[in-house]
C-alpha cells in the first residue's frame, strides 16, 4: 500500500503542478496544433518539408537538448528573453511557466501527428461539397473539418497530456527542480531516488504517476466509446 499520509505539502504540490503544467501546455498547444495540422494536411506550399521537420524535431531530439536550447532562447541573454520577455517584465526561467513551455514543445509533435491522422481520413469530397453548398473556408473548417477530426484532436490532446505528466529532461533544465514552485512528480521522484532513504516516497509517487496515467487512458477509452455510440 502507498502511504498516503506520508505525503508532505511539497508532494501534493508536485502532483497538482504536474496536472496543471500538462493541462496548460495541452490547452495552449491545441489551437496551434490544429492550425499546423490543417496547414500540413490541406495545403501545398513551399517549405512544407522544412516545417514538417521543425514540428517533428522534438520527437527525435533528447529532451535535455530541447531544455538547453529553450534556456538559451528564453534566458536573460537569450534572443526572446532579451528582446521580448525582459522589456515586458516577464520572468519565465525557473518558474512553472517555463515547465509549461518545455512540456508544450516536447509534446507538440505528438499532438500534431494525431490531429493530422484524423484530418487525413476526411474525404476531400466532403470539403468540396461544403464549399459548393456556400460555405466559406473558415465555415468549412468549423462545420466539417473540426467535427470530423475530433477523434484525432482528442487522441492528440490525451497523448500530449500524458506525455506532459512525464516530462523531465527539458523541464529540469529550463524550470529547475524547486519544490513547491517548479517541482513536478517526475522531478520529485528524481529527488527522492537520489536522496538516502527516499525509496519509499519515490515508490509512492511512482504509484501516483501510474494512477494518473491510468485515469488518462481510461478517460480516452470512455470518450472514444461515447463517440462510437453517437456515430
Amino acid at each position, binding site marked *: 500500500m502507498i502511504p498516503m499520509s506520508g505525503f508532505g505539502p511539497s508532494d501534493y504540490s508536485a502532483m497538482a503542478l504536474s496536472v496543471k503544467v500538462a493541462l496548460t501546455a495541452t490547452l495552449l498547444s491545441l489551437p496551434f496544433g490544429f492550425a499546423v495540422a490543417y496547414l500540413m494536411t490541406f495545403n501545398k506550399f513551399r517549405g512544407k518539408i522544412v516545417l514538417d521537420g521543425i514540428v517533428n524535431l522534438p520527437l527525435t531530439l533528447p529532451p535535455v537538448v530541447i531544455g538547453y536550447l529553450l534556456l538559451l532562447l528564453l534566458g536573460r541573454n537569450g534572443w526572446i528573453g532579451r528582446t521580448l520577455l525582459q522589456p515586458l517584465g516577464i520572468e519565465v526561467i525557473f518558474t512553472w511557466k517555463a515547465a509549461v513551455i518545455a512540456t508544450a514543445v516536447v509534446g507538440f509533435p505528438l499532438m500534431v501527428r494525431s490531429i493530422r491522422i484524423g484530418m487525413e481520413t476526411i*474525404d476531400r*469530397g*466532403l470539403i*468540396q*461539397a*461544403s*464549399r*459548393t*453548398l*456556400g*460555405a*466559406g473556408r473558415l*465555415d468549412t473548417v468549423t*462545420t*466539417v473539418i473540426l*467535427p*470530423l477530426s475530433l477523434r484525432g484532436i482528442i487522441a492528440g490532446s490525451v497523448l500530449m497530456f500524458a506525455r506532459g505528466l512525464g516530462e523531465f529532461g527539458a523541464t529540469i533544465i529550463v524550470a529547475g527542480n524547486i519544490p513547491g514552485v517548479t517541482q513536478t512528480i517526475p522531478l520529485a521522484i528524481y529527488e527522492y531516488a537520489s536522496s538516502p532513504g527516499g525509496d519509499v516516497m519515490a515508490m509512492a509517487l511512482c504509484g501516483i504517476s501510474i494512477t494518473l496515467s491510468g485515469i488518462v487512458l481510461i478517460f480516452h477509452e470512455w470518450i472514444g466509446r461515447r463517440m462510437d455510440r453517437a*456515430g
Partner: protein
Amino acid sequence: MKLRMEIQKRFGAFHLDANFEIEGDRIGIFGPSGSGKSTLVGILAGLHSPDEGVIDIDGTTIFDSREDIHVAVPERRIGMVFQHHHLFPHLSVKRNLLYGYRRCPAENRRIKPENLISALEIGHLLDRRVAHLSGGERQRIAIGRALLSNPRLLIMDEPLSGLDDNLKLKIIHSLKSACDTFRIPYLFISHSQIETRIMTDRVLTVEKGRVTGQMTGEELARSRMKDHIAGYVNLLKLRHVRTIHGMSVYRWGDRQLYISPGDDHPETIFELSSAEIILCKRHPDAISARNLLYCRVTDIFETGGRLGIELTCGKERLIVEIVRKAAEDLGIRKGIKIYAVIKATAFRRLR
C-alpha cells in the same frame, strides 16, 4: 442558361483543353471514363483552377485568367451532386439537407425545404443518420441538399453510378422532375448514353481531354451506333394496358406491343436494340414473333459499313440496323412502307 468555357489545364501528362459555348437547361456531358468530364465540371464549380482561360455563365464572368477574375466557390452558386453523394456523416439527414439552404442569402431562397422534401419523398428520413440510409436514399438526399442551396446551375457528376438498374430510373425520375419543378438548369455528366439521352436535351461530347462536339440525344445515339454492342438503343416509353397469355400489352403511340417479361407498372421505359428488329417486305403469315408493325422508312444513314433505317410508326420512331445487302434485296428507300418484326422477348425493361 448560357455557358461559355475556354480553358486549359494540365495535370501531369493529362491535358484538358475545353472550348465551347452551349445554351440550354438540360445539358449532358458525355464521354468515356478518364476523358476529363469531372475535371471540366470541377473547374466550372471552382474546385480546380484552370491554368488559363475564361468561364462565363449567363454573361457573368466567373473566371478570367487575363483579368485576374476568380470568383470563389461559394459565390459561384453552382451546386453539385457527386458520384459518391458526399453527405456529411456527422450530421443528420435534416441538417445535411439544410446545410446549403442556411448559407443561401434570403433573396435567393426560391426552393422551400418543405416543398422539396415532399417532391423527393424523403420526409420519413429526416431524423436518420447518413450511415443508416440505403444507396438510393443517400443519393436522393444529396440531390435535395444541392437543390436546397438554390444554385443557379446544378452539376450532377455521374450521380447514378453505383446504383442498381431498378433504382436508377427511380432516381432519374426524381432528379428530372425536381429540377423541372424548381426550374434549376443542370449539367448531367455520364458515360451512359441511355442516361444522358433520358436526362438531357443537348449533349457535349468529351474525349481525351477535349470537347469534341455538341449534339442532341438522338444524334448522340446515332453517332455511337457502331461502337455500341447493341447498335442503336431505341428507348420506348410505354403505357401498360393489360396482361394476356403471360405477356404484357403496352400502348406505344397508336400501336400495341407485346412484351415478355413485362410488368404492370403504368409507365415503363424499355430498351430495344436496333439489331433485334427484322424488316420484312410482305406480311409474314405465320411467325413466332409477337409484334408486327407496319411502318414507313423515313431516313437511311450509314453506320460503320451497315445501314441505319429510321422507321416511323404513327408518331413514334424506331431505328433498325441492317447490312447493306439486306437493304438492297428488300429495295429499301425513303418513303416505302415495310413490316418491322420484333420478338416479345427482345425488350429490356429499364425499371
